[in-house]
């Protein structure tokens, strides 16, 4: 009877260990994510599988883009080095699961902020780093210059698992046009199929269209139609339930935007410490205790500006100078006619 007691005890013990392990990790701590990140020594960041200007890897595996810079800013703030980021390329379909399951800690992947995503899926959007809208690309030779020329039977290539699919339906339905949606899992395949002539039009966010156009066999043969059919505020996302981490990511992004507003650049950040403007001094860590609330030192924001630059520098480096979207449009500061407006760091 007691012959198997030993085995049984070890089994029970094993299960007990597993349970204590989970309950221990479950216990609410002040920013578990920050603690884990500092322990690991790198920020785990989910990005796209290659969208020039936003998140794109070169041949050597170096990631660049405005979405990438958000993760670099967080790394500069919490680890002191903007290069301490591990990038995970994700498809539109995988991205939220990767975040909620804890595989990554920041999702910075041209992701549209919507009510259902924010409220339903266990995610929290921390801000907007690019104001976008959905548009259509067509071949120049088709003679189409406006979406009003679309006719019944048009075929449209796009990605699955995006707001694009839903907007497209709303757009064609409201105009009473029957269309053929051809939805691929990866952006590269959408581009390949559209480029081959499978579809009459390619629809996604306009920034995406501009970026993917550069990948076409002959970019000059394609134009992006002027109409914008939706609002697509793109921004970084974190898991629900770690409000300190959420704040760190939000204010890392805000710091970049506000630094541009006050003319602080990666080149002049150090000299700004002696500025007369207290707002500028707070942004470079020379006044106040701006990092304490996150459990960070006082120069976290200075490091972001010095290592990554302000939002304008990031935009110029990644999107304007690469010829994707030279005109900043709505992504200009509110003081210069755009809609970039962030709460003050104080």
């Amino acid at each position, binding site marked *: 009877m007691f012959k198997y007691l030993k085995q049984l005890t070890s089994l029970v013990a094993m299960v007990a260990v597993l349970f204590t392990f989970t309950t221990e990790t479950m216990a609410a701590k002040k920013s578990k994510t920050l603690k884990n990140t500092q322990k690991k020594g790198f920020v785990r960041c989910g990005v796209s599988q290659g969208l020039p200007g936003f998140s794109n890897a070169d041949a050597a595996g170096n990631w660049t883009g405005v979405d990438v810079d958000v993760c670099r800013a967080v790394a500069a703030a919490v680890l002191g080095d903007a290069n301490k980021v591990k990038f995970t390329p994700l498809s539109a379909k995988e991205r939220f699961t990767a975040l909620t399951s804890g595989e990554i800690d920041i999702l910075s992947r041209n992701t549209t902020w919507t009510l259902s995503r924010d409220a339903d899926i*266990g995610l929290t959007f921390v801000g907007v780093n690019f104001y976008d809208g959905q548009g259509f690309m067509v071949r120049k030779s088709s003679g189409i210059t406006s979406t009003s020329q679309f*006719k019944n039977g048009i075929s449209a290539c796009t990605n699955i698992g995006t707001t694009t699919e839903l907007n497209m339906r709303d757009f064609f339905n409201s105009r009473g046009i029957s269309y053929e949606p051809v*939805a691929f*899992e990866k952006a590269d395949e959408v581009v390949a*199929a559209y480029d081959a002539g499978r579809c009459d039009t390619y629809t996604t966010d306009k920034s995406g269209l501009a970026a993917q156009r550069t990948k076409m066999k002959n970019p000059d043969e394609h134009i992006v139609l002027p109409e914008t059919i939706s609002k697509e505020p793109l921004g970084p996302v974190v898991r*629900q339930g770690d409000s300190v981490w959420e704040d760190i990511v939000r204010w890392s992004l805000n710091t970049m935007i506000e630094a541009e507003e006050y003319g602080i650049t990666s080149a002049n950040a150090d000299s700004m410490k002696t500025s007369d403007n207290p707002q500028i001094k707070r942004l470079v860590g020379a006044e106040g205790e701006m990092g304490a609330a996150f459990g960070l030192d006082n120069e976290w924001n200075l490091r972001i500006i010095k290592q990554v630059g302000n939002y304008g520098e990031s935009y110029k480096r990644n999107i304007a100078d690469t010829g994707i979207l030279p005109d900043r449009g709505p992504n200009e500061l509110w003081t210069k006619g755009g809609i970039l407006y962030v709460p003050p760091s104080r």
Partner: protein
Amino acid sequence: MNFKLKDIGPQLMTVLAVVLVFGFFTYNAQVNMESRGIDFGYGFLSQESSFDVQFSLIEYDGSHSYFRAYLVGLLNTILVSVIGIILATILGVIVGIARLSPNYLINKFAAFYVEFFRNIPLLLQIFFWYFAALRALPLPQDAEAMFGISFLTIKGLYVPAFIWQNFNVFFYSVVAAIIAIIIIRIHAKKLQETKGKQTPVLLISIGLIFILPLLSFLIGGVRLSFEVPVLKQLATTSFIYEGGVSLPPELIALALSLSLYTATFIAECVRAGIQGVGKGQKEAAASIGLTPNQVLKLVVMPQALRIIIPPTTNQYLNLTKNSSLAAAIAYPDLVLVFAGTALMQTGKAIEIVSITMFTYLSLSISISILMNWYNRKIAIQEK
């Protein structure tokens, strides 16, 4: 007492361990989902899906429910699997027999086909047929008509649609022909067993299946006309065919690559089956005066099928599961529509993935049951 425990003990512990492991995973998932603010439930299935699907066998658009979207995906998976299984079987049997051909050219060509297609990963083949072959197809406006009525273009294959009058009369005539054939077969078998008389069943069957439907045209008032696809201009260089039936290139590429790939394995099953029948069997059959056709039909095939069916069942299962690679080339199958778009729009990962897994499991088990039934039918009847 002690002796019995020795027998049951390890089994009880195994069951306990399995229950504990499953319990732990469920508990862990629950706790983690709760702590991340994700709620669990299947209520979303009745919500409006609000996305459209390219190709559907049932009426569907974004105003239908997620459950309807699930059905659309499931039916598309079944469609491409059935097409794939039929094509793979036909091709596999032909190639399998060809590999045994004494003709050097046919033999080597079949061997080359098998070795080439089964050693390249399926996903690459799908990409090849979709992207490489698709690029080579003409745009709709440049397409040459096949037989004057069909068009193979980069946007798909357009074939004429049948427009029937009194279709039910035609349908009943086909059913009547099939019933007549079954009766004749049973009768012929009896005749063979009691009087040893041979009836040309095949010829009669072919005759019936043509003559009865033909009669329905002549005297039943059945009329058939075709709706031929017509080129329509959408913009200066953008064209499409309207009318008729259009098969999307995604379906064609997927069915083609699945069947070309699986046919290689079926061909090997067929070859193994035929070679597995003892040489003495054929010689014995020939020695009692059976014709070569009768040897194949009455002696070799019944025995070969017993060897062929079980591994071929595996290939059918593989084909069905491999059809989930559809997502790579935008064919709206279960994985793309339900485990792709629907999962993304609802965020119900655990629910949708579990439904999808369960669906594939059910599909596979259905195929297995069907094939096992057939296998039992052709197995040696012990008397």
